[in-house]
């Protein structure tokens, strides 16, 4: 966890307000970033997960001009930088996969257990089907349902997308119903 310490903003940008600013060392950032990337990493990136984190942390170190082993920095600033470089690394990896002869390969082993090829194929087909059904929704329903499928609550969806909760509720409910019909038409049991 980030260390709490009163600072004057000497490491990274000014704290920007009264009160203590949470601080973070690069080692703490690395270990937390490993956990978070592990949580969101899709199967088509799992085999490169460690490389993503390693490369991202190195780039953070370059950007912040790290010189001392135990230096700490404003956590919000460090996370902002880490996020940008991690996304950049994921996108570069995707581009390399697009041009490499070794096509984006889904991990053969997940959590120490070998992944059944048939299960992988079925998972891929289901993913493609649900994405296709989402694509067929009207724009507002598509945006609302996308966030719903990613785990956001209805009030949260309204807040993020600038809608009253009631409107977000309508869009999600009707959008999911339409999604279910589409998946059923494709032969899936939603």
């Amino acid at each position, binding site marked *: 966890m980030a260390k709490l310490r009163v600072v004057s903003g000497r490491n990274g940008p000014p704290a920007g307000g009264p009160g203590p600013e949470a601080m973070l060392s690069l080692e703490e950032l690395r270990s937390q970033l490993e956990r978070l990337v592990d949580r*969101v990493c*899709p199967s088509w990136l799992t085999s490169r997960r460690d490389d993503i984190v390693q490369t991202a942390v*190195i780039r953070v170190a370059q950007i912040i001009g790290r010189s001392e082993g135990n230096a700490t920095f404003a956590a919000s600033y460090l996370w902002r930088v880490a996020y940008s470089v991690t*996304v950049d690394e*994921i996108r570069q990896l995707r581009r*390399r996969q697009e041009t490499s002869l070794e096509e984006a390969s889904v991990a053969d082993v997940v959590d120490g257990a070998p992944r059944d090829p048939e299960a992988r194929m079925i998972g891929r087909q289901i993913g493609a089907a649900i994405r296709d059904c989402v694509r067929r929704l009207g724009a507002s329903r*598509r945006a609302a349902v996308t966030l719903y499928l990613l785990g956001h609550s209805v009030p949260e969806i309204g807040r*993020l997308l*600038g809608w009253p909760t009631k409107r977000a509720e309508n869009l999600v409910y009707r959008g999911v119903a339409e999604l279910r019909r589409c998946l059923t038409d494709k032969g899936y049991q939603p």
Partner: protein
Amino acid sequence: MTGPPSLAPDLLAAFADADVRTSGPCPPADEIWAAARGEGDAAGARQVALHVAECGACTVAWRLAVEVARVTPPADLDRRTESTPSSRWRRIASVGAAAALAAGLAGLFVIDARRFPARPDVGVYRAAAPAEVRSLLPDGAVLPRSEVHLRWTAGPEGSRYIVRVFTEDLTSVAEAGDLAAPEYLVPESRLAGLPAGARLLWQVTVVPPEGDRFTSPTFAVRLR
């Protein structure tokens, strides 16, 4: 209205996991960050959400922003505005949305972005896919201090290179920029304080004459 129709957990997982790729440009990372954390304008967030619906990599980016938000201070939601999209990516995305609407009115039931002519400034965010950079040293190479000669595959003709060398705890050892050739001999003086067997990490950024620069994976060698 009762709760939304439920969806099987494996469908939710499959949605997040899907390796879908859109032909359109991806928004800058900071726009996804702002949208997922409720820090930007709502119109922009809607554009980002529509893109996330069609892009596996940006789905990961969105989910990562949400996870980071859980470990960092919460967003200031009072700063939410309803301004018109101003960023270049959103202008591009808005053009795409207008085209999609026109296609819908023409009677198409499925909006397929590939049917629309390529937008000339798509290249701003999606330059030609770069070649992969590979180390030309054997895996786990053990090198004498006088001969830490790093070599890698060349980028497009006319590329320049930036190479950075670190210890395992990310202390900078050496850095060289604007190299004309895909190789770099680490000065022995930079290795003086390192013990035998020390592991060095190194990474190359290729700066092609045209298009975006790209960075290699991290490679490793050991000091004899």
